[in-house]
């Protein structure tokens, strides 16, 4: 089921939280929603789930519009809200039964689904405990099980791994990736590594507007294209090497790397590579090149560049 967002706007008071954004997500795609806090990620997700009524614009999930068929959309969406609210006073199994019943699953099917959810979310040992007795990681799994109980075509996950330990994060990511193959998934996060590891496509949103849209690689390429290499050159005087490197015709900037002896960061001129020149320089001067590493533009840098203005 595709999700189509067109000219979505949500204004709180006089301030637009989401300002005329449009995008599309296709079946089988996992879209990562990235942005600083308060960028409008959660607002957009709430609008898609029909929880928030937008000030303007249209959202379609499949063929259903949020304005005219919200109930149809709700049937097809699994939603894990930010902060993962749960009925703490209920046992896990009862809660999942309630969620299943509300999603109109027939009685015999509910039990089957609950067993399935408990096994894929790893809740076997906790199923009869009250939700309030669970640790944060297990609560998150209950939230996810709730979102998946009716096998929805669309999954909206608002910061699904917040508050989890590294092992749990990896498990939840694997789970999302596995499930996401046949579904349309939107997940939000402000952890870049997570989005990069889980999502097929990334949407960066800042101050209510989309500032970038593409795969992680595409985004990296779009940011400053200059090659940056780190080198360590031994058997020579630090300052002599520095001057020599600087005089190479492909090199734009050279910098000492603080904590290492004879280590330099070299930034090449746009669209040029200095790697061969550095190597040849060392041979001609009799220096020993002990380290050369190409630093890729990090997604962090792309993100900072796009969201700090």
């Amino acid at each position, binding site marked *: 089921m595709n999700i189509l967002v067109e000219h979505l706007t949500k204004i709180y008071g006089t301030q637009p939280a989401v300002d005329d954004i449009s995008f599309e997500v296709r079946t089988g795609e996992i879209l990562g929603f990235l942005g600083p806090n308060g960028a409008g990620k959660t607002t957009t997700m709430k609008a898609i789930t029909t929880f928030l*009524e937008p000030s303007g614009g249209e959202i379609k999930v499949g063929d259903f519009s949020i304005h005219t068929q919200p*109930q149809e959309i709700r049937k097809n*969406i699994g*939603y894990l809200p930010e902060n993962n609210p749960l009925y703490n*006073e*209920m046992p896990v199994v009862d809660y999942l039964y309630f969620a299943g019943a*509300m999603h109109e699953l027939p009685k015999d099917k509910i039990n089957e689904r609950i067993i399935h959810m408990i096994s894929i979310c790893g809740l076997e040992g906790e199923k009869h405990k009250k939700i309030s007795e669970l640790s944060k990681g297990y609560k998150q799994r209950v939230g996810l099980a709730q979102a998946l109980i009716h096998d929805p075509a669309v999954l909206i996950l608002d910061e699904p791994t917040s508050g989890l330990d590294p092992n749990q994060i990896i498990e939840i990511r694997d789970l999302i990736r596995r499930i996401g193959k046949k579904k349309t998934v939107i997940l939000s996060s402000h952890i870049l590594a997570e989005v990069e590891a889980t999502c097929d496509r990334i949407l960066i949103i800042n101050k209510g507007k989309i500032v970038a849209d593409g795969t992680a690689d595409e985004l990296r390429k779009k940011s400053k294209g200059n090659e940056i290499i780190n080198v360590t050159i031994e058997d020579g005087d630090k300052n002599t090497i520095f001057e020599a490197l600087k005089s190479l015709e492909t090199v734009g900037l050279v910098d000492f790397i603080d904590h290492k002896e004879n280590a330099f960061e070299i930034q090449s001129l746009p669209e040029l590579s200095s790697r061969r020149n550095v190597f040849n320089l060392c041979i001609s001067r009799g220096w020993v090149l002990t380290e050369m590493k190409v630093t890729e533009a990090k997604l962090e840098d792309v993100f900072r560049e796009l969201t700090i203005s």
Partner: protein
Amino acid sequence: MNKILIITVRELKVFFDSLMAYIMLLAFLGFSGFFTWLFGSDIFFVGQASLTTFFAIAFWTLFFFIPALTMRMLAEEKKTGTLEILLTMPVTNWEIVLGKFFSVLAVIAFALLLTLPYYFSVSSLGHIDHGSVWCGYLALLMLSAFYISIGIFASSISNNQIIGFLLTLLIGIFFHFIFEALAGGSSGLLGHILSYLSVASHFQSMARGVIDSKDIIYFLSFIWLGLFMSQKQLKY
């Protein structure tokens, strides 16, 4: 219809799973029992086999008991955020509000069921008018439904349970006696309107055994109004 039942059942399960439920029921029965049987102008004072004393007392105990039950209904869901889960499930606002309403009504009905021994005891003491007793119970149920719908509305306007509790009492107190007191001092149309708004007269005529469509319409229309405003509050 089915989803109303699912919500009602969930609420009842949670309620009877907590210590709160038993304390509340005990308090209700304790107060009603004490004033009906032991204290002041109690049931023996009347000199007749009749439950009117109990109905008059329950009129007061329910007034305090119901806000304590309804205050968490929507306020807690708003506070913890579970309302967001509920409102993204395929369910209408009416179904949510009605589910909550019937769950509290069921608790009250259960509490009233526990007072049936009063009826059996009194009926063994002398000749009792059975019809008027059942009317009395019906009046209590109507009155409860009336306060429950006010209570759910009060609970829907904020995420604070205490506000829900106090606001229910505040609205309730107008219907309970302020309108009546004002009606006493007014004449003409205003006096009529005020005395019509007062819940006491409607309750008392029913509790005496007179079922008048006027009273039924009064209760049903306020119940509807309270629930209607509650479900409006759930829209964002």
